[in-house]
């Protein structure tokens, strides 16, 4: 494998029409016969599988370039059409040209004066945007089409109609493609620019085909079935039809057959050529395979999500990638990824052998592909060789500087890690490899937020950059530490999760004391070796060990000033790196809104923040493992009489609603402006019922035991909310369908057990019971209804927002900031003079702003 340094770039791509001359010139064969193979199964000369058009059979050689299967790119052929045929995709252009030019002299239907004027305008426009140009062209077309007498030769113009797909009719008389071609031929070069064509690049008559290029065999390979039978590609089938029809047409013409027969065959040829290009033209029955399956022809290969553009050109497949299930590992760092041995031994990094690393690399080669850490291939100037038992000795002997060893992944290698759907840039980040046993990728739960991952079976992809440039870019641009702050709103989104928060909360709650031995054990297990010289530690002091001495944070400065209760847990105060007041909750160390990391990030930067996150997380789990945490059904127990209060409250709401309904039925309900009485009623009912459910939380707060596991969990912010408690203990509340109370099902009622016209509380889907008490059948049904509704809703939302995002990305992908600070698109048009009016990069900012207070503090603090 010879690596060549490619210095040339493709600068631009020009699009032109293919001229008959060029079709002939680039063709290797003139196809004459529809037969594919001879009796021996060998490709026919002059057939559609002619060996000069490329090879697809292993062993055979291409008769044009002499290469074998994979090396021959394929070569075009052509057929000479007995009669010209219109190219469907150009029909609209031909139609315009016919109407805009004279039927006799071929000149554009504009006076010399007009021509002069328009040419001038075109000249000007071509220097400006293409939009102005296309507007001028549209105007020319419109003007020329409206002219009925040729200003050049005085010929009266007929009215030309296009009968889709490809028939032109002038004043009731059919124009054959020959006529059409002749007319197009007559248009002089000088008039072409006015019609939007460049005469140097193409002639309009080329849009009527006289020669048809035959795509190379490599484009339409046949497949051999297990039975040994050959199955041809759809394109080959279609081309066979064309060649066959063409042959018959030619024979009939030669034999002097009647015009009707010739016209029929001509039309058939037109049909085959049309469907060869595009098999889903409206008003043309699609060509079918013998089995009735619709043939996939050229256009089908290009368009759509699975077409050439979106599938192969804008998206590409890659090597050196892996995918498995992910699982959590609190002990690896947030910027690491645990990689199974199996994966590490399959994915490799090419390492160039030098005098300095040859001994080190030799070991990998010695280990080979089956022993970690080994190597799979060695690339020498002679080629790429797999290391096997047999080849190992030779390779080892020959190994010398200049060779490349493809070694297994090692700890510390940089890889890209990705979870779909990749909606924002944090869905692909660079991690450091940690090779671990077992077959899942391991990640720290701290980084699940940016990936939007959980561990209920999620899978993720891993890619190994293969060049130094790729690795350098990954390191500088993509590492986790560079993506702690989201560019969406400028705050860290990475942070503590469930157990970490609960652990830290329990540790820092109150004034519990821990002996030094315990603290030593705890801190050592999270990798902190230096601890203050003290016999006893409070939980807050333990947490403070992680904080630097110059770190300060006040949750609520106003409240703190007058506060005398030092050491209470009401609000957080960190002074000189000591957590003085407050328990650590989600507010402080959680992702998204974690204040601690937010402040810390501003002061100490990404690396240290990431490190702190890891340590806080570890401290949380380690402590939680000592402490334990459990929740129980008893957490939802209410003292006697309390549940009755909830029921009472709900009853009251029900009564209120009944009153409203009565009012409504009597027609006395005063409607809100712009609303019908029914809408007003619905709104009011919703309001009352939701209020009732929320009110039950007051009862809960009063009677529910506070020191339970469930409540602790909620208070710390680790998981769950008061709403969840209400749902369990009190009631589920109103179930909604499409944002409204449930109002459909049977005729005039929601379920057959209600009276007709019942629009009451229960019939509308209000669930009085909580999960603990259990739902009655009616409630259960409505709950299921609401559940299905939200499921359907989600299913509709995903594709909609997906399409929106695709459009957004497509519209904005070329927009970038230039060196002069302006924001421009790919053609250099200025969109903003300064990004966001102040040029601030949101991901570098503090919530889209600059924290002047912090700067002042820093300046004054220093002196």
């Amino acid at each position, binding site marked *: 494998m010879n690596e060549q340094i490619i210095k040339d770039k493709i600068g*631009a*791509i020009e*699009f032109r*029409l293919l001229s008959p001359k060029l079709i002939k010139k680039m063709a290797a064969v003139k196809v004459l016969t529809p037969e594919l193979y001879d009796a021996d199964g060998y490709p026919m000369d002059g057939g559609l599988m002619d060996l000069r058009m490329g090879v697809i059979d292993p062993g055979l050689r291409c008769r044009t370039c002499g290469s074998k299967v994979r090396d021959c790119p394929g070569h075009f052929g052509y057929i000479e059409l007995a009669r010209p045929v219109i190219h469907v995709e*150009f029909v609209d*252009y031909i139609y315009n040209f016919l109407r805009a030019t004279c039927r006799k002299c071929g000149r554009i239907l504009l006076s010399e004066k007009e021509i002069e004027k328009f040419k001038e305008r075109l000249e000007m426009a071509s220097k400006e945007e293409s939009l102005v140009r296309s507007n001028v062209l549209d105007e020319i077309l419109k003007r020329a089409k409206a002219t009925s007498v040729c200003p050049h030769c005085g010929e009266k113009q007929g009215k030309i109609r296009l009968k889709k797909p490809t028939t032109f009719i002038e004043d009731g008389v059919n124009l054959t493609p020959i006529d059409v071609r002749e007319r197009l031929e007559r248009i002089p070069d000088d008039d072409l620019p006015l019609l*939007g*064509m460049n005469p140097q690049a193409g002639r309009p008559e080329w849009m009527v085909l006289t020669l048809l290029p035959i795509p190379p065999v490599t484009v339409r390979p046949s497949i051999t079935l297990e039975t040994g039978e050959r199955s041809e590609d759809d394109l080959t089938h279609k081309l066979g039809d064309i060649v066959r029809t063409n042959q018959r047409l030619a024979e009939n013409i030669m034999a002097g057959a009647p015009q009707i027969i010739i016209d029929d065959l001509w039309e058939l040829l037109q049909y085959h050529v049309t469907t060869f290009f595009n098999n889903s033209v409206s008003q043309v029955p699609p060509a079918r395979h013998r089995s009735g399956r619709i043939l996939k022809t050229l*256009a089908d290969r290009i*368009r759509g999500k699975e077409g050439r*553009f*979106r599938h192969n*050109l*804008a998206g590409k497949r890659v090597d050196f990638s892996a995918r498995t299930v992910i699982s959590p590992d609190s002990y690896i760092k947030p910027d690491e990824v645990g990689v199974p041995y199996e994966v590490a031994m399959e994915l490799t990094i090419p390492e160039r052998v030098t005098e300095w690393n040859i001994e080190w690399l030799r070991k990998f080669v010695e280990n080979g592909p089956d022993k970690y850490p080994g190597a799979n291939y060695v690339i020498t100037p002679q080629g790429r060789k797999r290391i096997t038992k047999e080849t190992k000795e030779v390779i080892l002997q020959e190994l010398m500087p200049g060779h490349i060893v493809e070694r297994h992944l090692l700890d510390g290698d940089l890889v890209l890690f990705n979870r779909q759907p990749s*909606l924002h840039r944090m869905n692909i980040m660079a991690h450091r490899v940690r090779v671990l046993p077992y077959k899942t990728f391991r990640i720290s739960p701290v980084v699940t937020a940016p990936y939007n991952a959980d561990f209920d079976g999620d899978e993720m992809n891993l890619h190994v950059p293969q060049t130094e440039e790729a690795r350098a*870019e990954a390191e500088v641009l993509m590492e986790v530490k560079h993506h702690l702050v989201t*560019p*969406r*709103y400028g705050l860290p989104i990475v942070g503590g999760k469930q157990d970490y928060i609960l652990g830290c909360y329990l540790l820092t709650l109150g004034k519990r004391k821990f002996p030094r031995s315990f603290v030593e054990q705890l801190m050592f297990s999270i990798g902190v070796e230096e601890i203050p010289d003290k016999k006893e530690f409070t939980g807050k002091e333990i947490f403070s060990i992680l904080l630097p001495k110059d770190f300060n944070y006040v949750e609520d400065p106003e409240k703190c000033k007058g506060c005398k209760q030092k050491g209470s847990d009401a609000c957080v105060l960190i002074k000189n790196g000591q957590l003085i007041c407050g328990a650590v909750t989600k507010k402080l160390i959680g992702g998204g809104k974690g204040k601690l990391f937010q402040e810390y990030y501003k002061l100490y930067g990404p690396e240290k923040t990431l490190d702190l996150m890891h340590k806080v997380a570890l401290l949380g789990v380690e402590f939680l493992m000592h402490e334990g945490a459990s929740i129980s059904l008893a957490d939802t127990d209410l003292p006697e009489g309390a549940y009755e209060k909830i029921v009472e409250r709900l009853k009251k709401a029900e009564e209120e609603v009944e009153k409203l309904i009565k009012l409504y039925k009597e027609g006395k309900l005063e409607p809100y*402006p*712009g609303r019908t009485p029914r809408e007003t009623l619905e*709104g009011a009912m*919703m309001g009352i019922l939701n209020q009732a459910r929320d009110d039950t939380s007051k009862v809960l707060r009063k009677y529910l035991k506070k020191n339970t596991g469930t409540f602790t969990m909620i208070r710390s912010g680790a998981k769950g909310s008061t709403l969840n408690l209400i749902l369990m203990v009190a009631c589920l509340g109103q179930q909604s369908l499409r*944002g409204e109370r449930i109002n459909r099902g049977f005729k005039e009622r929601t379920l057959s057990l209600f009276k007709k016209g019942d629009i009451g509380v229960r019939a509308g889907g209000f669930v009085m019971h909580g999960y603990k008490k259990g739902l009655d059948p009616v409630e259960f049904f409505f709950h299921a209804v609401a559940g299905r509704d939200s499921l359907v809703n989600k299913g509709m*939302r995903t594709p*909609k*927002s997906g399409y*929106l*995002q695709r*459009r*957004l*990305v*497509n*519209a*904005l*992908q*070329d*927009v*970038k*900031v230039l*060196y002069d*600070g302006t924001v421009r*698109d*790919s*053609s*250099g048009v200025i*969109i903003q003079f300064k*990004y*966001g009016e*102040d040029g*601030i*990069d949101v991901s570098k*900012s503090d919530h*889209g702003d*600059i924290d*002047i207070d912090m*700067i*002042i503090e820093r*300046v*004054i603090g220093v002196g």
Partner: protein
Amino acid sequence: MGLDDLKRAEQVLPKKLYEKLLERLKRYNIKGKLANKVAREVIKEYERVQQTPGEAVGVVTAQSIGEPGTQMTLNVFHFAGVAEMNVTIGLPRVIEVLDARRTPSTPSMTIYLKKEYAKDEKEVRRIAAELIEVKLNDLISDTVMDLLNTRLLFTLDKGALRNYNVKPKQVEEMLKKVYKNADVKLLKDGRIRVKLKTEDVGEMYKLKSKVLDTYIKGVPGVTHVLPIRDKKEWIIKTAGTNLKKVLELPYVDPERTISNDIFEIAKVLGIEAARNAIINEVKEVLDRQGIEVDIRHLMLIADTMTFDGKIRGITRYGITSQKSSILARASFEIPLKHIFSAAVKNEVDPLQGVVENVMINQPVPVGTGIPKLIYKVKRSGDKE
């Protein structure tokens, strides 16, 4: 150096930031040298957080708006709030704005009143009622078509007249004004007679519905009004918009009154206003959903939609159709059309965008793909 840093800050920093700096300096009573030092540090920080040249801000913006899209509700109407105008919210509204649809699905105006009117609830309610467009149809309890005499007889509904505060005379005048050559008369029994010129029955039916549709008073287009208390003043929300007419009304505060119809705003107030309207409309939806997106992203979207003076949606007919690159257009939607038209017109794709270069396996011209440093490798055997 020294004292000049504050002055330099005034030049370098954006106005808003400079004002914030001054405010903070005042609040903490920082003066002289120290103030200069703070200013210097703020400038330094401002320069640090500047966008890096080459940053693909477009993609970042697209992601920042697209990513939270999955979290937005699909429910079209806002229902829980009782006294609220029905407006489209959530994802459908965002799509509507970004698509640049000609008319919003729920056109609405928020009318602010001049100070002297905005306090008094009764006055505001009266004004609001006057805004509703009243057509003849709304005021009528019965219509008789007298085919024999080719005339129409409309019975006015007293209740409706009172509701809409319209006098029968007014109706007569309006009809006379519109149908100048028809014989319109207010009869003594309270009916209105319209004598028609035609004798053709079909024609008469057509005319009847036309007459019924006659505008009598109010602001054309406004179907509902809702006075709402907004902090200290009363504002009026409407269903249906007609910004131009409303702004002309004497009691309306023309500086704050706004419509949610982007095209209308562009027409009445200009493209810059439309650009701000796009920002505000999207922002309001996102805020309501509790989704935080930095304003700069919305600005970039709004600017790309309006920078050439016309409103272009994020669709294949809008922004994408304006791209110079054939391949970029082709990769989005309907590739064949673009390729064939490019062939006829002999277009050249300059390959300056992202997808084009992805397609041909070349570095993309954003970010680290921009700098073109070539290092000439000297081989050991090469001569100078």
